[in-house]
């Protein structure tokens, strides 16, 4: 119930736990961006941004492609979906568990 479609949910949730990385993801969700573009709003060195990108890449939340000397970054939405699926699955698990708990307790006399 933990891994989903080849994505490591732990890496995904870890990557998403940082506000800078979440902001980066938001930026690349609308369109492909270069690393320089991504660094701009954060007043951060390219090296620092690259570190964040590495973590996002490891979780497979982004795709990185190289074109000449430019790196382009775009969102891999499938990875986000797998994080959603974890929540949906446990949501259903606990909902049905509480249903059966209530059946059990409500049929028994006090």
């Amino acid at each position, binding site marked *: *119930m*933990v*891994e989903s479609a080849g994505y*490591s*949910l*732990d890496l995904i*949730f870890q990557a*998403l*736990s940082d*506000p800078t990385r*979440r902001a980066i*993801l*938001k930026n690349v*969700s*609308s369109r492909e961006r270069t690393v320089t573009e991504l660094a701009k709003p954060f007043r951060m060195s390219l090296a620092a941004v690259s570190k964040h990108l590495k973590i996002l890449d490891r979780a497979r939340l982004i795709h990185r492609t190289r074109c000449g000397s430019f790196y382009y970054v775009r*969102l891999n*939405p499938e990875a*986000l*979906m797998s*994080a*959603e699926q*974890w*929540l*949906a699955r*446990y*949501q259903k*698990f*606990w*909902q*049905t*568990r*509480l*249903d*059966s*708990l*209530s*059946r*059990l*307790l*409500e049929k*028994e006399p*006090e």
Partner: protein
Amino acid sequence: MKPADTRLCVKKLIKAKRDRVFAAWTTPDLMKQWYAPDEMTVPTASCDLRVGGKYRVEMMGRLMGEQASGTVTGKYIKIIPGELLVFTWRWEGDPSPETVVTVELAEASGGTEVTVTHDRFSSANARNKHEYGWTGCLENLASYWRQNEQRQ
């Protein structure tokens, strides 16, 4: 459901007193009767109800039409009889870090309101750090992508 969160929350009003609901969560013979989903059963359950004590619930049978089995295990982090139960959650044989389940029982008219929160982050530290600024992010991205997909 808020897909933006790393935690999910489920509530239900159960027509029974808080002590009975608490007992159903912490008595192996009772746990066996409701813990397993779908067409699964619980052949063995154990529970050492003290902070740091372990519980273990084995589940076997059919899940969504397919043969399945799994054992969930963890340790109790916080126990207030009749009110609160916090424990870690891990599937045996799964290398992923454990998650945390919080069960809150509140008196309500007609019975007990049970709130189950299942959290991706197991350490208190990580939880505090991630508490804020989460909601909306993942949700927005996912819905953005869905709209995009539909357009294409």
